[in-house]
C-alpha cells in the first residue's frame, strides 16, 4: 500500500521535474525541425546559435549590468534572428543544391566558427564558477509547489511560460499569416515549394530567423543549468534536439514537440528510479551518475539503431529524397590528375630540408610542436579514409583515437605490456569497435551516419569514459592517465628527437598504406560506391561490406594515432585531446584543407599544431623580416581566429570537395596552363611581327608598346 503510494508520488514528481527541461528540449526540437524541413539543412550549428544568445545575454545582463528585458531582447530577438538570417543569406541559400552531407559539413564548420566569432567580437570569455542567471530575478528560489511533491523554482516556471508562449506564437503564425501558411505547406511537403510557386527564399529566410530565435531562447533558458558558458556544452544541445526530433520521427513539428517533452520525462524518470536499481546492479552506476548528459545520446543512438521505422520515415520525409537529382558525391575521384613529377620532387626535397633543419636546430618546444603535427597528420589520415575515400562523415574519430590512447594507458601503465605493442593492440581494438559500430550505423547513410557517430562519441564521452577498466575511473582523476614512452632495444624514445623519428616513420607507413588502399580494390570500390551507389550494387559490389572495411581501417588509423599522441604527451589527456567537440575541429580542418589526399592530412596536421605559433603569433613574419622585433603590431593574433578560418573554410567544401589546398593548386595549374598557352601562342607571332611589339622590361613603358602587345596576342588566338 505505502509502496504503491510512494511509487505514485515518485512518478508524479519525476513527471513534474521533467517538464521544464522538456519544454526547452521541445523548443530546440521545433527550431531544428523547422530549418530541416524548410531548407533541407540538418543544422548541427544549432547549438552554436543557442550558445551565442546565451553568451550575449550573460554579457549584457551580468557584465554590462543591463536590466533583464533589454538584455533578453538583444540576445534573443535581435542577435539570434540576425544570425539566422545571415547564415541563410550568406551561406545556405547558395548551397541549396549541394548534397546533404556537404551541408552537414558546413554546419559543423559553423558550429566551431560562430561561437569563436562571437567571442572575438565581444571579447567574451566564459568564467568558470559564475553560474549564468536566468530571466527572472532570484531564479533559483522555490516558488510554487502544486502537488506537494515537487517544488518548481522561479526559473523553471519562467522557462515553461516562455517556451509555451513561443510555441503558441508559432502556432498562431502558422494559422493566421500568409507566410506562415506557406511555411507550413513547405514543412508538410517540401516539394510544394516548387509546385505552387511559393517564394522559397522568403520562406527559408523566415524559417532560419525563427528557428534561430528558438535556438537563442532555448540557450538563454537552459544556461542556468550549466556552470559555465562553454560552446561544447551547447553543442550537446543539438544532439538533444536531434534526439527529440527523431523521437518524433522528424516528420512534423507537433511530433517534435512531443519528442522534446518525452525526452525531459525520460531523463527525470530515470533520474528517479535508476538509483534504486543501481543499488543492486552496479553496472548501472556510471549511467546513473551521468544521467542527464548521457540520456539523449543513449536515446538517439538506440532509436537510430534499433528502431527501423525511423529509417522508413526518413525515406518518406527527407526533403532531399525523391525528386531531387542525386547529390554529387563527396569522396569520389580520389585519384586526382597526376602531378608533374618535378614539382613532386621539389616538394619532397623541401619537406626533407625542413625536416633536417627542425631535427638539428629546433629547441624542445619546436620539436614538441612538430611531433604533434606529425602525429595529428597520422590521425587525420583516418579522416582521409572515411571521408575522402568512403564519402562518409564520421564524428567519432576522436573516440577511436581515445580508445587507442586508453588502451596504451591500461596495458602499458597498469599491466606492463610493451608500449608499441599496446599501441597496436589499441588500434586493433579501435578497428573492432569501428567495425561493430559501422554495422548498424552505415545502414542509415548520409546525414544519419554523422548523427549516429556523434551520438556514439557523446555516449563514450559521458558514460564509458567514467568506467574504471576503460579509462581508469576515479584514480585517473587524481593521478592522470600516465603513458610511458617506449624503449625498443637500444633506442629509448623518451628522447624527444628519437620519438619524432618514430612518429615520422609511422606516418610514412600509414600514408603509404592509405595510398595503396586508394589505388587498390578497396579504394576503387569505395570510389565507385560514392560515385553511384546503385550502379555499384548493380555490378555486384556490396556497399555495406566496403564501408565496414573503410570504417575499420579508419578506426585503426585513428586508434594508432591516438595511442601515439598519448605516448607523445605521456598522458591520455582525454578532455583536451579527444572529447567529441575537440575532435569536431579535426574533421573541420581536414575537410577544409583537403580530405582526399595524404597531403591534405599532412597540411591539416601542420595547421593544427603550427598555425598558431607560426602564423598567428607572427613568428613566420619575424623570420621573413629577419628580426623578432620588427613583427608588426597586429601580432600576436588571437588563436581563436583559427577556429574562424577553418570553420568558415568548410563552406567551400560544398563546391570544391577536394579542399582548399587542392582547389587552389588546381586553379593555379589552370592559370599557369592558360598563361603558357598564351605565351607559346603569341610567342611565335611576336617573332614574326616587328620586334617593337615585344615589351622590354628595361625600356620605358610607352603607350605604343602597351597597345602593340595586346593586338598581337589577340590576333593569334
Amino acid at each position: 500500500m505505502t509502496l504503491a503510494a510512494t511509487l505514485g508520488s515518485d512518478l508524479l514528481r519525476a513527471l513534474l521535474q521533467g517538464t521544464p527541461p522538456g519544454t526547452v528540449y521541445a523548443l530546440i526540437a521545433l527550431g531544428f525541425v523547422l530549418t530541416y524541413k524548410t531548407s533541407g539543412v540538418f543544422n548541427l550549428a544549432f547549438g552554436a546559435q543557442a550558445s551565442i544568445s546565451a553568451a550575449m545575454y550573460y554579457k549584457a545582463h551580468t557584465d554590462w549590468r543591463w536590466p533583464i528585458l533589454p538584455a533578453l531582447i538583444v540576445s534573443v530577438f535581435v542577435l539570434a534572428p540576425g544570425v539566422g538570417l545571415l547564415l541563410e543569406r550568406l551561406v545556405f541559400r547558395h548551397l541549396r543544391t549541394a548534397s546533404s552531407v556537404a551541408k552537414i559539413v558546413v554546419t559543423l564548420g559553423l558550429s566551431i566558427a560562430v561561437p569563436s566569432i562571437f567571442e572575438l567580437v565581444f571579447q567574451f570569455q566564459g568564467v568558470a564558477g559564475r553560474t549564468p542567471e536566468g530571466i527572472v530575478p532570484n531564479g533559483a528560489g522555490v516558488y510554487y509547489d502544486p502537488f506537494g511533491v515537487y517544488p518548481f523554482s522561479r526559473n523553471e516556471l519562467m522557462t515553461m511560460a516562455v517556451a509555451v508562449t513561443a510555441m503558441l506564437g508559432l502556432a498562431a503564425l502558422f494559422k493566421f499569416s500568409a507566410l506562415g501558411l506557406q511555411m507550413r505547406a513547405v514543412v508538410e511537403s517540401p516539394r510544394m515549394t516548387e509546385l505552387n510557386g511559393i517564394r522559397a527564399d522568403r520562406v527559408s529566410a523566415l524559417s532560419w530567423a525563427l528557428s534561430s530565435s528558438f535556438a537563442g531562447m532555448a540557450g538563454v533558458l537552459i544556461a542556468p543549468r550549466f556552470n559555465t558558458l562553454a560552446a561544447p556544452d551547447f553543442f550537446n544541445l543539438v544532439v538533444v534536439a536531434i534526439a527529440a526530433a527523431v523521437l518524433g520521427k522528424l516528420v512534423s513539428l507537433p511530433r517534435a514537440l512531443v519528442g522534446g517533452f518525452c525526452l525531459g520525462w525520460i531523463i527525470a524518470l530515470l533520474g528517479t528510479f535508476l538509483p534504486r536499481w543501481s543499488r543492486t546492479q552496479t553496472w548501472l552506476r556510471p549511467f546513473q551518475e551521468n544521467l542527464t548528459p548521457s540520456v539523449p545520446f543513449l536515446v538517439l543512438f538506440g532509436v537510430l539503431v534499433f528502431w527501423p521505422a525511423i529509417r522508413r520515415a526518413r525515406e518518406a520525409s527527407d526533403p532531399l529524397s525523391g525528386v531531387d537529382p542525386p547529390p554529387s558525391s563527396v569522396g569520389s575521384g580520389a585519384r586526382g590528375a597526376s602531378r608533374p613529377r618535378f614539382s613532386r620532387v621539389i616538394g619532397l626535397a623541401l619537406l626533407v630540408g625542413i625536416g633536417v633543419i627542425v631535427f638539428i636546430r629546433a629547441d624542445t618546444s619546436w620539436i614538441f610542436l612538430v611531433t604533434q603535427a606529425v602525429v595529428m597528420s597520422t590521425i587525420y589520415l583516418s579522416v582521409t579514409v572515411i571521408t575522402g575515400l568512403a564519402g562518409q562523415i564520421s564524428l567519432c574519430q576522436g573516440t577511436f583515437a581515445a580508445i587507442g590512447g586508453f588502451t596504451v594507458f591500461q596495458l602499458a601503465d597498469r599491466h606492463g605490456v610493451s608500449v608499441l605493442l599496446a599501441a597496436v593492440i589499441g588500434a586493433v581494438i579501435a578497428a573492432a569497435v569501428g567495425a561493430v559500430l559501422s554495422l548498424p550505423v552505415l545502414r542509415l547513410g548520409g546525414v544519419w551516419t554523422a548523427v549516429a557517430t556523434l551520438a556514439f562519441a557523446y555516449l563514450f564521452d559521458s558514460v564509458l569514459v567514467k568506467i574504471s577498466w576503460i579509462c581508469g575511473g576515479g584514480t585517473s582523476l587524481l593521478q592522470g592517465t600516465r603513458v610511458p614512452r617506449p624503449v625498443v632495444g637500444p633506442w629509448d624514445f623518451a628522447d624527444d628527437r628519437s620519438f619524432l623519428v618514430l612518429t615520422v616513420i609511422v606516418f610514412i607507413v600509414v600514408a603509404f598504406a592509405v595510398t595503396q588502399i586508394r589505388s587498390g580494390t578497396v579504394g576503387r570500390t569505395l570510389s565507385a560506391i560514392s560515385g553511384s551507389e546503385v550502379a555499384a550494387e548493380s555490378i555486384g559490389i556490396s556497399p555495406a561490406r566496403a564501408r565496414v572495411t573503410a570504417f575499420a581501417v579508419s578506426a585503426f588509423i585513428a586508434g594508432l594515432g591516438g595511442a601515439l599522441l598519448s605516448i607523445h604527451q605521456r598522458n591520455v589527456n582525454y578532455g583536451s585531446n579527444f572529447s567529441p567537440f575537440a575532435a569536431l575541429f579535426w574533421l573541420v580542418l581536414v575537410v577544409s584543407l583537403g580530405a582526399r589526399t595524404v597531403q591534405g592530412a599532412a597540411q591539416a596536421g601542420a595547421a593544427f599544431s603550427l598555425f598558431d605559433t607560426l602564423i598567428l603569433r607572427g613568428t613566420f613574419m619575424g623570420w621573413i623580416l629577419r628580426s623578432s622585433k620588427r613583427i608588426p603590431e597586429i601580432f600576436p593574433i588571437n588563436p581563436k581566429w583559427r577556429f574562424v578560418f577553418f570553420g568558415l573554410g568548410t563552406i567551400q567544401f560544398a563546391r570544391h570537395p577536394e579542399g582548399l589546398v587542392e582547389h587552389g593548386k588546381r586553379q593555379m595549374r589552370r592559370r599557369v596552363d592558360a598563361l603558357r598557352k598564351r605565351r607559346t601562342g603569341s610567342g611565335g607571332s611576336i617573332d614574326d611581327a616587328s620586334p617593337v611589339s615585344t615589351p622590354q622590361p628595361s625600356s620605358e613603358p610607352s603607350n605604343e608598346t602597351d597597345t602593340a602587345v595586346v593586338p598581337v596576342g589577340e590576333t593569334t588566338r
Partner: protein
Amino acid sequence: MTNVLDTQGVSKKFSGIMAVHDLSISVDAGESVGLIGPNGAGKTTFFNCVLGVLRVNAGVVRLAGDDVTEMPVHARARRGIGRTFQRIELFAESTVREHLLIAERTRRRDGGLWKDLIGRGRPRADEIAKCDEVLELLGLRDVADEPIEHLSLGQGRLVEVGRALMTDPKLLLLDEPTSGLDRQETADLAITLRAVQEHRQFAILLVEHDVEFVSSFTQRSYVLDFGQLIASGPTQDVLRDPQVRAAYLGVEEISS
C-alpha cells in the same frame, strides 16, 4: 528450365499507388524482350524489383530457376543480371576504363584489403586486356582514358553497357537506352548492341519508348499500363493491339 528471368505476381505499392500490380513475365536465355508502356506505367519500378533495389510487396522473382526475392542487389547482380539506368549512373571522376576495371575486379572477387596493402591491388595486365576487349567491341577504345565527364550521352550509355558486360550477365536490363540520343546515335546504339549480343549471348529485357527501336530489336513484348499487364506477345502484334494504342496516346502515327 531455360528461363533466365521469371517473375510471378510481382507487386509494388508506393504509399497508395500500385506502381506494379501482379506482374508475371519470363525471359528465355539469349532472347530479346520488350517491356513497353506509357510514362509512369511502372517499368522502371519493375526493373528495380527484379534487381532488388526495391523490395516487392508480393510475388516471386526467379533467376535461372532460383528464388532471389529476398536477396540484396549485389547478390542478384552476381547471379548474372546487368543493368543500365534511365538517368545515367556513372562513377563521377573516373575514366571509362576504370568503370570496367572495377566491374571486372568485382566479378573476380579476388581483391581485398590485404592484397591492396601488399601492393597487389593495382589493375593487372590480364584485367586491362579483358576490359579493352569490351571497349573495342563497343567502340570506346579511343576514349578509354577519358574521364566520363568528357563523354557524350551516347558514349555514356555505352559505358554503362560495357560496365554491365564485364559482369558476364545472362540478362541485361536496358532502361530507355535511347532517351536523349539523336537518330544517328540511336541507330549506332542498335547496331552495337546487336553485335555485342551476338558475340556474348545474353538475354535482353528492354524498356523503350522509341517504337521503331523496340520493334526492330525485340521478338516479343509485354505492355504495361498503370502497373498492369495489358498485352503480351510478338512485338509486331502487340503494337497493333487497339488497347495498347489507346494506352499509348499519340504513338499511332509513328508505328503506322
